[in-house]
């Protein structure tokens, strides 16, 4: 875990220019691992204290969390399955962040992506599974992409704050989903839990051979690596980072900021839409309210913890996937409410943000010693 994070962050981190001395060269990179790591440990300690107040042994807590997340092959598979949509929804926050935008509506794009993908599959019943699957991927990505583009467009052309509009769009997406699932798209056979018709077992995307982890994880990994290359190794990504750093400078050098915003928002939304498609095609098999499981919101936390770096998102998503995977075990063994995972996520988020104040302030990392 840590080494993986180390490599990815080091590749991305900007080492201070030419001066011998290990700390001076890698100080900044070490900071990017040390500070979030310390924030994580601090958050776990506070959560342990909270659990102790609740009358449980924090050491049991840590043990079961580890065991439920990474202790066995079974829990690893559970963790990785949960990490897949988290990687994608985190990209939905991390990509616009390169432009200085705070998009927190990944959940909405996920739901719209799931609806679009399901619609595509239901429209193509009878076609070859591979055709249906490709159509689902495309429909999910376009649906989610357009949903976030809406926020980006409103920001660019109407000056509407993208954070608030994207969050409002989550509730609107949920209403659309509930409306369609209980009305026009309802499968009459779904009595207790209104759902659409099933996309069909043949059209499910299945698991990676030898595991119970579905192919969605591969989708997520590919998307994260592609996003990393796009942001750090293409002209487009460079332009986006310039615009994110100083919008006036970007305009002066002739960058079309509007086009950048719309494109990046579309890509971001299509990642979250893909997550929705995966949840339908690999887990649920249909669209219903179960899809609003909060992956979009946890994705925001993943993106911030990874400091908006697409490669760092991968280990962080696995870590947070592990935390949510251990939730069931905490409920069964320690009798903790299912919301404990939410509490821990909230505490981690607060610590990570507060730790932003520490960058550049840790004396021994400046190479002064």
């Amino acid at each position: 875990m840590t080494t993986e994070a180390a490599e990815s962050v080091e590749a991305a981190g900007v080492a201070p220019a030419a001066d011998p001395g290990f700390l001076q060269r890698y100080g900044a990179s070490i900071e990017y691992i040390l500070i979030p790591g310390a924030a994580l440990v601090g958050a776990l300690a506070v959560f342990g204290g909270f659990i102790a107040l609740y009358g449980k042994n924090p050491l049991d807590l840590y043990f079961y969390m580890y065991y439920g997340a990474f202790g066995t092959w079974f829990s690893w598979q559970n963790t990785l399955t949960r990490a897949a949509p988290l990687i994608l929804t985190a990209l939905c926050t991390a990509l616009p962040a390169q432009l200085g935008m705070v998009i927190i509506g990944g959940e909405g794009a996920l739901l719209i992506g799931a609806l679009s993908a399901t619609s595509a599959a239901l429209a193509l019943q009878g076609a070859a599974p591979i055709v249906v699957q490709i159509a689902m991927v495309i429909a999910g990505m376009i649906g989610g992409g357009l949903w976030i583009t809406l926020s980006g467009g409103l920001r660019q052309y109407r000056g509407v704050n993208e954070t608030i509009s994207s969050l409002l769009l989550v509730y609107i997406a949920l209403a659309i989903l509930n409306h369609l699932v209980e009305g026009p798209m309802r499968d009459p056979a779904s009595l207790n839990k209104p759902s659409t018709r099933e996309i069909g077992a043949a059209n499910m995307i299945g698991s990676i051979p030898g595991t119970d982890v579905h192919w969605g994880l591969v989708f997520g990994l590919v998307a994260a690596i592609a996003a990393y290359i796009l942001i750090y190794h293409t002209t487009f990504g460079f332009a986006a980072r310039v615009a994110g750093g100083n919008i006036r400078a970007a305009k002066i050098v002739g960058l079309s900021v509007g086009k950048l915003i719309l494109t990046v928002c579309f890509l971001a939304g299509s990642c979250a839409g893909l997550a929705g498609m995966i949840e339908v095609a690999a887990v649920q098999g249909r669209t219903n309210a179960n899809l609003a499981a909060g992956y979009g919101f946890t994705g925001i936390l993943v993106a911030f913890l990874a400091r908006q770096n697409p490669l760092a998102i991968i280990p962080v998503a696995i870590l947070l996937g592990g935390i949510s995977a251990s939730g069931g075990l905490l409920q069964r063994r320690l009798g903790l409410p299912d919301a404990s995972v939410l509490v821990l996520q909230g505490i981690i988020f607060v610590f990570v943000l507060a730790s932003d104040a520490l960058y550049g302030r840790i004396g021994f990392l400046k190479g002064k010693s």
Partner: protein
Amino acid sequence: MADASLGLWTVPLAVFGGAIRVSTPFLFVSLGECITERSGRINLGLEGTLVMGAMSAYGISYLSGSPWLGVLAAGITGALFGALHAGICSLPRVNDIAVGIALMLLGTGLAFFLGKPLIEPTAARLPAIDFGWWSDVPQLRAALRINVLFLIGVAIAPLLYWAFRTTRWGLLIRTAGESADAARAMGHSVLLIRLRATMVGGFLAGIGGSFLSLFYPGSWNEGLSSGQGITAVALVIFARWDPMLCLWASLAFGGAAALGPALQSVGITSGYHLFNAAPYILTLAIMIITCSPKRTLTGAPAELSITR
């Protein structure tokens, strides 16, 4: 049968009654956020504060038997969350919007965690004043059963309007929001002003939450708030940071939110979920109409990160 004789009039009546009932949380959260934003900070975490307020009010009301103690507890919880927000934001290079998102998650999670044992029991609820005693029409009487908290909220709006204009505190908050340097030059601590403004904002938002669990809908469950907190934050933006406009906007929102249930009561059930989304659609629509990329909004505090 009064129901039959009223016919379609039940819809506007239910919307009117709903506007008063549903608008109360919007009103408290938006007034609270108005104070915070006027001081130059945005607290997106009021959604979490609202849910925490609802949970703690219900818990304290259940344990003590007094709903008003519950309201107080909700306010104090809200103020503590406000202090947490302001405390983290006063660290250098910390983004207030991101902290808000974090506290939204933390507040909701903590409320669900601690509120688990409260889903079953019934707590003492807030009393309502019957303003419809003169009428025989049950729907009208139902619409005019108005909660004291609503009246308090309605009274706070003009009070705040006056306080912003004329009192020393109002002036200090506005100075911190318009120009932190000016406030510093006057020898005041901007961080301290914002800490207090965020705490008062959280206090009011917590009280808004207590209304949810102690009056309408009047019980504690995990689906109690569905974005009212965040809608209220957006509401402040198109109310142009003016407490009186917050009041009118909250009423309009309450009416919009009451539309779905009102139509359902006369048998129009299709599109129920879409009508429930009316406040969000309305917020978005009004933001689209009133915002502009060319200029900052009139009345916007200059220090606010969301308008820069």
